[in-house]
Protein backbone atom coordinates (compact mmCIF):
# COMPACT_ATOMS: atom_id res chain seq x y z
CA UNK A 1 0.00 0.00 0.00
CA UNK A 2 2.68 2.49 1.05
CA UNK A 3 4.66 1.21 -1.87
CA UNK A 4 1.93 1.97 -4.39
CA UNK A 5 1.47 5.36 -2.75
CA UNK A 6 5.14 6.11 -3.30
CA UNK A 7 4.88 4.82 -6.86
CA UNK A 8 1.92 7.03 -7.51
CA UNK A 9 3.76 10.04 -6.10
CA UNK A 10 6.75 9.17 -8.24
CA UNK A 11 4.52 8.90 -11.30
CA UNK A 12 3.13 12.33 -10.45
CA UNK A 13 6.65 13.72 -10.19
CA UNK A 14 7.85 12.26 -13.47
CA UNK A 15 4.79 12.84 -15.60
CA UNK A 16 3.95 16.09 -13.89
CA UNK A 17 7.31 17.75 -14.42
CA UNK A 18 7.40 16.10 -17.83
CA UNK A 19 4.14 17.66 -18.93
CA UNK A 20 5.05 21.03 -17.46
CA UNK A 21 8.33 21.09 -19.37
CA UNK A 22 6.87 19.69 -22.58
CA UNK A 23 4.07 22.24 -22.47
CA UNK A 24 6.19 25.27 -21.72
CA UNK A 25 8.87 24.23 -24.23
CA UNK A 26 6.20 23.94 -26.91
CA UNK A 27 4.93 27.33 -25.79
CA UNK A 28 8.42 28.78 -26.24
CA UNK A 29 8.53 27.42 -29.79
CA UNK A 30 4.99 28.62 -30.49
CA UNK A 31 5.76 32.11 -29.20
CA UNK A 32 8.97 32.34 -31.22
CA UNK A 33 7.10 31.16 -34.30
CA UNK A 34 4.30 33.65 -33.71
CA UNK A 35 6.65 36.56 -33.11
CA UNK A 36 8.79 35.77 -36.15
CA UNK A 37 5.66 35.39 -38.26
CA UNK A 38 4.12 38.63 -37.07
CA UNK A 39 7.32 40.65 -37.27
CA UNK A 40 7.93 39.48 -40.83
CA UNK A 41 4.37 39.88 -42.11
CA UNK A 42 3.31 42.90 -40.08
CA UNK A 43 6.53 44.82 -39.41
CA UNK A 44 5.51 47.45 -36.89
CA UNK A 45 7.20 50.57 -35.56
CA UNK A 46 6.83 51.30 -31.87
CA UNK A 47 3.50 52.97 -32.66
CA UNK A 48 1.58 50.00 -31.29
CA UNK A 49 3.11 50.63 -27.89
CA UNK A 50 2.12 54.31 -28.09
CA UNK A 51 -1.16 54.12 -26.17
CA UNK A 52 0.45 52.12 -23.37
CA UNK A 53 3.40 54.47 -23.37
CA UNK A 54 1.28 57.60 -23.19
CA UNK A 55 -0.82 55.99 -20.48
CA UNK A 56 2.29 55.31 -18.43
CA UNK A 57 3.86 58.75 -18.96
CA UNK A 58 0.48 60.34 -18.29
CA UNK A 59 0.13 58.63 -14.94
CA UNK A 60 3.71 59.54 -14.08
CA UNK A 61 3.17 63.08 -15.30
CA UNK A 62 0.48 64.13 -12.83
CA UNK A 63 2.00 65.15 -9.54
CA UNK A 64 0.82 63.59 -6.27
CA UNK A 65 -1.22 66.62 -5.23
CA UNK A 66 -3.25 66.65 -8.46
CA UNK A 67 -3.73 62.94 -7.99
CA UNK A 68 -4.81 63.48 -4.39
CA UNK A 69 -7.30 66.10 -5.45
CA UNK A 70 -8.68 63.88 -8.18
CA UNK A 71 -8.93 60.86 -5.92
CA UNK A 72 -10.56 63.02 -3.26
CA UNK A 73 -12.94 64.21 -5.94
CA UNK A 74 -13.73 60.65 -6.90
CA UNK A 75 -14.28 59.72 -3.25
CA UNK A 76 -16.43 62.80 -2.69
CA UNK A 77 -18.31 61.91 -5.87
CA UNK A 78 -19.02 58.55 -4.26
CA UNK A 79 -19.68 59.71 -0.70
CA UNK A 80 -22.12 62.32 -1.97
CA UNK A 81 -24.73 59.63 -2.45
CA UNK A 82 -26.51 58.58 0.73
CA UNK A 83 -26.15 55.06 2.24
CA UNK A 84 -27.79 52.32 0.09
Amino acid at each position, binding site marked *: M*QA*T*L*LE*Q*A*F*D*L*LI*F*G*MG*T*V*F*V*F*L*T*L*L*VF*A*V*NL*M*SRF*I*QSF*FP*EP*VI*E*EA*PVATRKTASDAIDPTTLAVIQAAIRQHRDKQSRG
Partner: protein
Amino acid sequence: MDTLLRLWQSTGIYHMQSGQMIMIGICLLLLFLAIRKGFEPMLLVPIGFGGLLANLPAAGLAFSAIEHALVNGTPEIGATLAQLAGLGTDTADATIYKTLTQGEPELHQAALHTVQTAGYNDGMLYTFYKVAIASGIAPLVIFIGVGAMTDFGPLLANPKTLLLGAAAQFGIFATVMGAVGLSYFGMDFTIAEAAAIGIIGGADGPTAIYVASKLAPDLLGAIAVAAYSYMALVPLIQPPIMRALTTQAERGIVMQQLRTVSKREKIIFPIVMLALVGLILPDATPLLGAFCLGNLMRESGVVDRLSDTAQNALINITTIFLGLAVGSKLAADKFLDPKTLGILALGIVAFGIGTAAGVLMAKAMNLFCKHKINPLIGSAGVSAVPMAARVSNKLGLQANPQNYLLMHAMGPNVAGVIGSAIAAGVMITIVSNLPAG
Protein backbone atom coordinates in the same frame (compact mmCIF):
# COMPACT_ATOMS: atom_id res chain seq x y z
CA MET B 1 -37.89 31.13 33.61
CA ASP B 2 -37.01 28.32 31.24
CA THR B 3 -36.83 31.02 28.58
CA LEU B 4 -33.82 32.28 30.52
CA LEU B 5 -32.43 28.76 30.59
CA ARG B 6 -32.98 28.38 26.82
CA LEU B 7 -31.35 31.74 26.34
CA TRP B 8 -28.33 30.67 28.40
CA GLN B 9 -28.11 27.34 26.61
CA SER B 10 -28.14 29.23 23.33
CA THR B 11 -25.19 31.47 24.27
CA GLY B 12 -21.80 30.94 22.75
CA ILE B 13 -20.08 30.59 26.12
CA TYR B 14 -22.28 27.58 26.88
CA HIS B 15 -21.12 25.84 23.69
CA MET B 16 -17.53 27.11 23.59
CA GLN B 17 -14.91 24.42 23.00
CA SER B 18 -11.16 24.68 23.47
CA GLY B 19 -10.54 23.95 19.79
CA GLN B 20 -12.57 26.95 18.79
CA MET B 21 -10.63 29.12 21.25
CA ILE B 22 -7.37 28.06 19.65
CA MET B 23 -8.67 28.64 16.12
CA ILE B 24 -9.93 32.10 17.08
CA GLY B 25 -6.44 32.85 18.34
CA ILE B 26 -4.96 31.64 15.06
CA CYS B 27 -7.39 33.74 13.02
CA LEU B 28 -6.56 36.83 15.08
CA LEU B 29 -2.91 36.13 14.31
CA LEU B 30 -3.75 35.94 10.59
CA LEU B 31 -5.56 39.26 10.80
CA PHE B 32 -2.61 40.78 12.65
CA LEU B 33 -0.19 39.55 9.99
CA ALA B 34 -2.46 40.82 7.22
CA ILE B 35 -3.18 44.25 8.68
CA ARG B 36 0.00 45.05 10.59
CA LYS B 37 2.60 43.13 8.57
CA GLY B 38 0.90 43.44 5.18
CA PHE B 39 0.71 39.68 4.56
CA GLU B 40 -1.40 39.44 1.36
CA PRO B 41 -4.16 41.45 3.07
CA MET B 42 -6.56 41.20 0.12
CA LEU B 43 -7.06 37.53 0.91
CA LEU B 44 -5.92 37.10 4.50
CA VAL B 45 -8.29 39.73 5.89
CA PRO B 46 -11.41 37.99 4.53
CA ILE B 47 -9.91 34.54 5.26
CA GLY B 48 -8.97 35.43 8.81
CA PHE B 49 -12.32 37.06 9.47
CA GLY B 50 -14.13 34.13 7.88
CA GLY B 51 -12.15 31.87 10.22
CA LEU B 52 -13.32 33.90 13.19
CA LEU B 53 -16.94 33.57 12.09
CA ALA B 54 -16.54 29.85 11.41
CA ASN B 55 -15.35 29.25 14.97
CA LEU B 56 -17.96 31.24 16.83
CA PRO B 57 -19.58 28.55 18.99
CA ALA B 58 -23.22 27.58 18.37
CA ALA B 59 -23.52 29.96 15.43
CA GLY B 60 -22.73 27.20 12.95
CA LEU B 61 -22.02 29.69 10.18
CA ALA B 62 -19.77 27.18 8.42
CA PHE B 63 -22.22 24.29 8.77
CA SER B 64 -24.78 22.94 6.34
CA ALA B 65 -28.33 22.84 7.68
CA ILE B 66 -28.00 19.13 8.58
CA GLU B 67 -24.61 19.53 10.28
CA HIS B 68 -25.91 22.58 12.15
CA ALA B 69 -28.91 20.60 13.42
CA LEU B 70 -26.64 17.73 14.49
CA VAL B 71 -24.02 19.82 16.28
CA ASN B 72 -25.97 22.77 17.66
CA GLY B 73 -29.55 21.50 17.40
CA THR B 74 -31.91 20.30 20.11
CA PRO B 75 -31.53 16.72 21.37
CA GLU B 76 -34.84 15.90 19.66
CA ILE B 77 -33.66 16.79 16.16
CA GLY B 78 -30.41 14.97 16.86
CA ALA B 79 -32.31 11.83 17.78
CA THR B 80 -34.55 12.11 14.71
CA LEU B 81 -31.55 12.37 12.40
CA ALA B 82 -29.71 9.50 14.09
CA GLN B 83 -32.80 7.36 13.68
CA LEU B 84 -33.11 8.43 10.05
CA ALA B 85 -29.52 7.34 9.54
CA GLY B 86 -30.37 4.05 11.23
CA LEU B 87 -27.76 4.71 13.95
CA GLY B 88 -27.92 4.95 17.73
CA THR B 89 -28.50 8.36 19.32
CA ASP B 90 -25.07 8.11 20.95
CA THR B 91 -23.30 7.91 17.58
CA ALA B 92 -20.82 10.68 16.84
CA ASP B 93 -22.34 13.58 14.90
CA ALA B 94 -19.70 13.22 12.20
CA THR B 95 -20.66 9.59 11.56
CA ILE B 96 -24.36 10.39 11.36
CA TYR B 97 -23.62 13.31 9.02
CA LYS B 98 -21.51 11.11 6.75
CA THR B 99 -24.21 8.43 6.63
CA LEU B 100 -26.91 10.95 5.83
CA THR B 101 -25.06 12.91 3.16
CA GLN B 102 -22.82 10.40 1.41
CA GLY B 103 -25.32 7.56 1.13
CA GLU B 104 -28.33 7.36 -1.14
CA PRO B 105 -29.62 10.68 -2.51
CA GLU B 106 -33.09 9.83 -1.12
CA LEU B 107 -31.68 9.66 2.41
CA HIS B 108 -29.98 13.03 1.98
CA GLN B 109 -33.23 14.50 0.65
CA ALA B 110 -35.17 13.21 3.62
CA ALA B 111 -32.66 14.55 6.15
CA LEU B 112 -32.71 17.92 4.39
CA HIS B 113 -36.50 18.01 4.54
CA THR B 114 -36.44 17.10 8.24
CA VAL B 115 -34.03 19.82 9.35
CA GLN B 116 -35.55 22.52 7.12
CA THR B 117 -39.03 21.94 8.49
CA ALA B 118 -37.41 22.14 11.96
CA GLY B 119 -36.10 25.57 10.96
CA TYR B 120 -32.39 24.87 10.46
CA ASN B 121 -30.69 26.53 7.48
CA ASP B 122 -27.30 26.43 5.82
CA GLY B 123 -24.83 28.75 7.54
CA MET B 124 -23.77 31.95 5.79
CA LEU B 125 -20.20 30.77 5.19
CA TYR B 126 -21.37 27.34 4.09
CA THR B 127 -23.50 29.01 1.43
CA PHE B 128 -20.57 31.14 0.30
CA TYR B 129 -18.37 28.05 0.10
CA LYS B 130 -20.93 26.13 -1.91
CA VAL B 131 -21.52 28.98 -4.35
CA ALA B 132 -17.98 30.32 -4.64
CA ILE B 133 -15.63 27.36 -4.23
CA ALA B 134 -17.47 24.03 -4.43
CA SER B 135 -18.84 25.20 -7.76
CA GLY B 136 -15.25 25.97 -8.77
CA ILE B 137 -16.36 29.39 -10.06
CA ALA B 138 -14.64 31.90 -7.76
CA PRO B 139 -11.02 30.90 -8.50
CA LEU B 140 -11.81 31.04 -12.21
CA VAL B 141 -13.36 34.50 -11.91
CA ILE B 142 -10.29 35.66 -9.99
CA PHE B 143 -8.18 34.27 -12.83
CA ILE B 144 -10.17 36.30 -15.36
CA GLY B 145 -9.29 39.41 -13.37
CA VAL B 146 -5.66 38.38 -12.92
CA GLY B 147 -5.41 37.76 -16.64
CA ALA B 148 -6.80 41.24 -17.26
CA MET B 149 -4.09 42.65 -14.97
CA THR B 150 -1.22 40.68 -16.50
CA ASP B 151 1.15 42.14 -19.09
CA PHE B 152 2.84 39.36 -21.05
CA GLY B 153 5.13 41.85 -22.77
CA PRO B 154 8.32 40.93 -20.90
CA LEU B 155 7.63 37.23 -21.37
CA LEU B 156 7.00 37.64 -25.10
CA ALA B 157 10.16 39.70 -25.43
CA ASN B 158 12.20 36.83 -23.97
CA PRO B 159 10.18 33.61 -24.31
CA LYS B 160 12.88 31.26 -23.11
CA THR B 161 12.27 32.58 -19.58
CA LEU B 162 9.15 30.38 -19.75
CA LEU B 163 11.48 27.50 -18.91
CA LEU B 164 12.34 29.15 -15.61
CA GLY B 165 8.64 29.09 -14.82
CA ALA B 166 8.66 25.39 -15.65
CA ALA B 167 11.64 24.51 -13.49
CA ALA B 168 10.23 26.31 -10.45
CA GLN B 169 7.27 23.91 -10.46
CA PHE B 170 9.64 21.21 -9.29
CA GLY B 171 8.80 22.53 -5.83
CA ILE B 172 5.26 21.26 -6.30
CA PHE B 173 6.11 17.70 -7.20
CA ALA B 174 8.99 17.36 -4.78
CA THR B 175 6.52 18.34 -2.07
CA VAL B 176 4.13 15.61 -3.20
CA MET B 177 6.95 13.14 -2.60
CA GLY B 178 7.58 14.81 0.74
CA ALA B 179 3.93 14.51 1.75
CA VAL B 180 3.96 10.82 0.90
CA GLY B 181 7.22 10.52 2.79
CA LEU B 182 5.55 11.92 5.89
CA SER B 183 3.24 8.92 5.91
CA TYR B 184 6.26 7.04 7.27
CA PHE B 185 5.92 9.29 10.30
CA GLY B 186 2.33 8.20 10.72
CA MET B 187 0.81 11.15 8.84
CA ASP B 188 -1.37 9.33 6.37
CA PHE B 189 -1.96 11.50 3.33
CA THR B 190 -3.76 10.00 0.36
CA ILE B 191 -2.19 10.69 -3.03
CA ALA B 192 -4.97 13.23 -3.67
CA GLU B 193 -4.12 15.03 -0.43
CA ALA B 194 -0.41 14.92 -1.20
CA ALA B 195 -1.04 16.46 -4.61
CA ALA B 196 -3.22 19.18 -3.10
CA ILE B 197 -0.48 19.98 -0.58
CA GLY B 198 2.15 20.08 -3.28
CA ILE B 199 0.29 22.82 -5.15
CA ILE B 200 1.24 25.18 -2.33
CA GLY B 201 4.62 25.23 -4.08
CA GLY B 202 2.86 26.83 -7.03
CA ALA B 203 2.79 30.04 -4.98
CA ASP B 204 -0.46 30.98 -6.65
CA GLY B 205 -3.53 31.40 -4.44
CA PRO B 206 -6.43 30.79 -6.81
CA THR B 207 -4.71 27.74 -8.30
CA ALA B 208 -4.09 26.28 -4.85
CA ILE B 209 -7.70 26.82 -3.80
CA TYR B 210 -8.97 25.38 -7.08
CA VAL B 211 -6.90 22.21 -6.79
CA ALA B 212 -7.57 21.74 -3.07
CA SER B 213 -11.32 22.13 -3.60
CA LYS B 214 -11.18 19.32 -6.16
CA LEU B 215 -8.69 16.92 -4.54
CA ALA B 216 -8.84 17.54 -0.78
CA PRO B 217 -11.59 19.93 0.39
CA ASP B 218 -10.91 19.15 4.07
CA LEU B 219 -7.36 20.45 3.77
CA LEU B 220 -8.38 23.53 1.78
CA GLY B 221 -8.19 25.85 4.77
CA ALA B 222 -4.67 24.88 5.75
CA ILE B 223 -3.48 24.82 2.14
CA ALA B 224 -4.86 28.27 1.33
CA VAL B 225 -3.48 29.77 4.52
CA ALA B 226 -0.07 28.24 3.86
CA ALA B 227 -0.07 29.39 0.24
CA TYR B 228 -0.92 33.00 1.00
CA SER B 229 1.26 33.26 4.11
CA TYR B 230 4.32 31.94 2.32
CA MET B 231 3.63 34.17 -0.69
CA ALA B 232 3.86 37.06 1.76
CA LEU B 233 7.06 35.59 3.21
CA VAL B 234 8.76 35.31 -0.20
CA PRO B 235 11.04 38.28 0.61
CA LEU B 236 12.33 36.31 3.61
CA ILE B 237 12.31 32.78 2.16
CA GLN B 238 13.97 33.38 -1.19
CA PRO B 239 17.02 35.65 -0.72
CA PRO B 240 19.18 33.26 1.34
CA ILE B 241 18.54 30.44 -1.12
CA MET B 242 19.25 32.73 -4.06
CA ARG B 243 22.50 33.97 -2.53
CA ALA B 244 23.61 30.46 -1.60
CA LEU B 245 23.20 29.22 -5.16
CA THR B 246 24.76 32.15 -7.03
CA THR B 247 28.12 33.87 -7.16
CA GLN B 248 28.55 37.63 -6.85
CA ALA B 249 29.51 37.61 -10.53
CA GLU B 250 26.36 35.78 -11.59
CA ARG B 251 24.17 38.12 -9.59
CA GLY B 252 25.84 41.02 -11.35
CA ILE B 253 24.99 39.83 -14.84
CA VAL B 254 23.31 42.64 -16.78
CA MET B 255 20.72 41.30 -19.19
CA GLN B 256 20.20 42.79 -22.64
CA GLN B 257 17.45 45.37 -23.05
CA LEU B 258 14.05 43.78 -23.82
CA ARG B 259 12.60 44.55 -27.26
CA THR B 260 9.22 46.26 -27.39
CA VAL B 261 6.48 43.74 -28.13
CA SER B 262 3.83 44.61 -30.69
CA LYS B 263 0.16 44.85 -29.73
CA ARG B 264 -0.54 42.14 -32.28
CA GLU B 265 1.69 39.63 -30.52
CA LYS B 266 0.05 40.45 -27.19
CA ILE B 267 -3.41 39.89 -28.65
CA ILE B 268 -2.55 36.59 -30.32
CA PHE B 269 -0.54 35.12 -27.44
CA PRO B 270 -3.47 34.22 -25.14
CA ILE B 271 -5.14 32.44 -28.05
CA VAL B 272 -1.99 30.51 -28.91
CA MET B 273 -1.58 29.51 -25.29
CA LEU B 274 -5.22 28.44 -24.99
CA ALA B 275 -4.94 26.32 -28.14
CA LEU B 276 -1.86 24.59 -26.74
CA VAL B 277 -3.54 23.93 -23.40
CA GLY B 278 -6.59 22.58 -25.14
CA LEU B 279 -4.54 20.19 -27.21
CA ILE B 280 -2.37 18.89 -24.41
CA LEU B 281 -4.08 19.23 -21.06
CA PRO B 282 -7.89 19.62 -21.04
CA ASP B 283 -8.03 19.63 -17.24
CA ALA B 284 -6.03 22.86 -17.20
CA THR B 285 -8.42 24.65 -19.56
CA PRO B 286 -10.74 26.12 -16.92
CA LEU B 287 -7.91 27.91 -15.08
CA LEU B 288 -5.86 28.92 -18.12
CA GLY B 289 -8.98 29.56 -20.20
CA ALA B 290 -10.15 32.11 -17.66
CA PHE B 291 -6.65 33.56 -17.51
CA CYS B 292 -6.45 33.90 -21.31
CA LEU B 293 -9.93 35.41 -21.52
CA GLY B 294 -8.99 38.13 -19.07
CA ASN B 295 -5.73 38.82 -20.89
CA LEU B 296 -7.44 38.91 -24.29
CA MET B 297 -10.01 41.39 -22.97
CA ARG B 298 -7.10 43.50 -21.74
CA GLU B 299 -4.96 43.41 -24.86
CA SER B 300 -7.68 43.47 -27.50
CA GLY B 301 -8.29 47.09 -26.49
CA VAL B 302 -11.87 46.98 -27.77
CA VAL B 303 -13.57 45.93 -24.53
CA ASP B 304 -11.85 48.19 -22.01
CA ARG B 305 -15.00 48.51 -19.93
CA LEU B 306 -15.20 44.73 -19.52
CA SER B 307 -11.49 44.58 -18.75
CA ASP B 308 -11.79 47.37 -16.18
CA THR B 309 -14.71 45.65 -14.48
CA ALA B 310 -12.86 42.31 -14.44
CA GLN B 311 -9.89 44.04 -12.77
CA ASN B 312 -11.98 45.86 -10.20
CA ALA B 313 -15.62 45.32 -9.25
CA LEU B 314 -15.69 41.68 -10.34
CA ILE B 315 -12.40 40.54 -8.83
CA ASN B 316 -12.99 42.50 -5.63
CA ILE B 317 -16.48 41.12 -5.06
CA THR B 318 -15.25 37.61 -5.77
CA THR B 319 -12.24 38.05 -3.48
CA ILE B 320 -14.43 39.00 -0.52
CA PHE B 321 -16.60 35.90 -0.85
CA LEU B 322 -13.71 33.62 -1.81
CA GLY B 323 -11.87 34.70 1.32
CA LEU B 324 -14.86 34.16 3.58
CA ALA B 325 -15.50 30.78 1.98
CA VAL B 326 -11.89 29.71 2.58
CA GLY B 327 -12.31 30.90 6.15
CA SER B 328 -15.19 28.46 6.56
CA LYS B 329 -12.61 25.70 6.25
CA LEU B 330 -10.74 27.02 9.28
CA ALA B 331 -13.25 25.32 11.59
CA ALA B 332 -11.41 23.69 14.50
CA ASP B 333 -12.36 20.12 13.64
CA LYS B 334 -10.81 20.48 10.20
CA PHE B 335 -7.81 22.68 10.92
CA LEU B 336 -6.59 21.49 14.33
CA ASP B 337 -5.04 18.31 13.05
CA PRO B 338 -1.40 17.19 13.06
CA LYS B 339 -1.74 17.14 9.27
CA THR B 340 -1.91 20.94 9.32
CA LEU B 341 1.57 21.13 10.83
CA GLY B 342 2.76 18.74 8.13
CA ILE B 343 1.15 20.96 5.51
CA LEU B 344 2.78 24.12 6.86
CA ALA B 345 6.17 22.40 7.01
CA LEU B 346 5.84 20.97 3.51
CA GLY B 347 4.62 24.26 2.13
CA ILE B 348 7.73 26.20 3.06
CA VAL B 349 9.89 23.38 1.75
CA ALA B 350 7.96 23.58 -1.51
CA PHE B 351 8.70 27.29 -1.81
CA GLY B 352 12.36 26.70 -1.10
CA ILE B 353 12.76 23.88 -3.60
CA GLY B 354 10.86 25.83 -6.24
CA THR B 355 13.12 28.83 -5.75
CA ALA B 356 16.25 26.74 -5.94
CA ALA B 357 15.04 24.90 -9.04
CA GLY B 358 14.35 28.18 -10.78
CA VAL B 359 17.77 29.59 -10.00
CA LEU B 360 19.59 26.40 -11.01
CA MET B 361 17.60 26.22 -14.24
CA ALA B 362 18.74 29.74 -15.08
CA LYS B 363 22.35 28.75 -14.46
CA ALA B 364 21.88 25.63 -16.59
CA MET B 365 20.44 27.69 -19.43
CA ASN B 366 23.44 30.00 -19.29
CA LEU B 367 25.55 27.03 -20.39
CA PHE B 368 23.76 27.04 -23.74
CA CYS B 369 22.32 30.50 -24.42
CA LYS B 370 24.51 33.28 -25.79
CA HIS B 371 22.44 36.05 -24.11
CA LYS B 372 23.28 35.29 -20.48
CA ILE B 373 20.40 35.19 -17.98
CA ASN B 374 20.86 36.59 -14.50
CA PRO B 375 20.09 33.56 -12.30
CA LEU B 376 18.35 35.84 -9.80
CA ILE B 377 15.33 36.01 -12.10
CA GLY B 378 15.02 32.22 -11.92
CA SER B 379 13.53 32.44 -8.45
CA ALA B 380 10.69 34.56 -9.86
CA GLY B 381 9.54 31.39 -11.63
CA VAL B 382 7.62 30.31 -8.54
CA SER B 383 5.15 33.10 -9.45
CA ALA B 384 3.99 34.89 -6.26
CA VAL B 385 3.40 37.82 -8.60
CA PRO B 386 4.81 40.47 -8.27
CA MET B 387 6.61 39.86 -4.97
CA ALA B 388 9.11 37.33 -6.32
CA ALA B 389 10.06 39.59 -9.23
CA ARG B 390 10.68 42.45 -6.82
CA VAL B 391 12.93 40.21 -4.75
CA SER B 392 14.98 39.37 -7.85
CA ASN B 393 15.24 43.07 -8.63
CA LYS B 394 16.33 43.93 -5.08
CA LEU B 395 19.11 41.34 -4.99
CA GLY B 396 20.18 42.40 -8.46
CA LEU B 397 20.60 45.99 -7.34
CA GLN B 398 22.56 44.86 -4.28
CA ALA B 399 24.98 43.07 -6.57
CA ASN B 400 25.15 45.89 -9.11
CA PRO B 401 23.45 49.25 -8.47
CA GLN B 402 22.86 49.72 -12.23
CA ASN B 403 21.24 46.31 -12.65
CA TYR B 404 17.47 46.65 -12.89
CA LEU B 405 16.02 43.12 -13.21
CA LEU B 406 12.35 43.88 -12.52
CA MET B 407 11.15 43.73 -16.11
CA HIS B 408 13.32 40.69 -16.86
CA ALA B 409 11.93 38.94 -13.78
CA MET B 410 8.33 39.61 -14.77
CA GLY B 411 8.72 37.07 -17.60
CA PRO B 412 9.45 34.02 -15.42
CA ASN B 413 7.09 35.46 -12.83
CA VAL B 414 4.01 35.19 -15.05
CA ALA B 415 5.43 32.01 -16.58
CA GLY B 416 5.24 30.63 -13.06
CA VAL B 417 1.51 31.26 -12.99
CA ILE B 418 1.10 29.34 -16.24
CA GLY B 419 3.43 26.61 -14.99
CA SER B 420 1.51 25.99 -11.80
CA ALA B 421 -1.82 26.02 -13.63
CA ILE B 422 -0.40 23.30 -15.89
CA ALA B 423 0.88 21.39 -12.88
CA ALA B 424 -2.59 21.71 -11.37
CA GLY B 425 -4.13 20.27 -14.50
CA VAL B 426 -1.72 17.34 -14.60
CA MET B 427 -2.34 16.45 -10.98
CA ILE B 428 -6.10 16.62 -11.35
CA THR B 429 -5.89 14.47 -14.47
CA ILE B 430 -3.64 11.79 -13.03
CA VAL B 431 -5.13 11.65 -9.55
CA SER B 432 -8.74 11.57 -10.71
CA ASN B 433 -7.82 8.65 -12.97
CA LEU B 434 -6.12 6.72 -10.18
CA PRO B 435 -7.89 4.08 -8.11
CA ALA B 436 -8.36 5.93 -4.77
CA GLY B 437 -4.93 5.50 -3.09
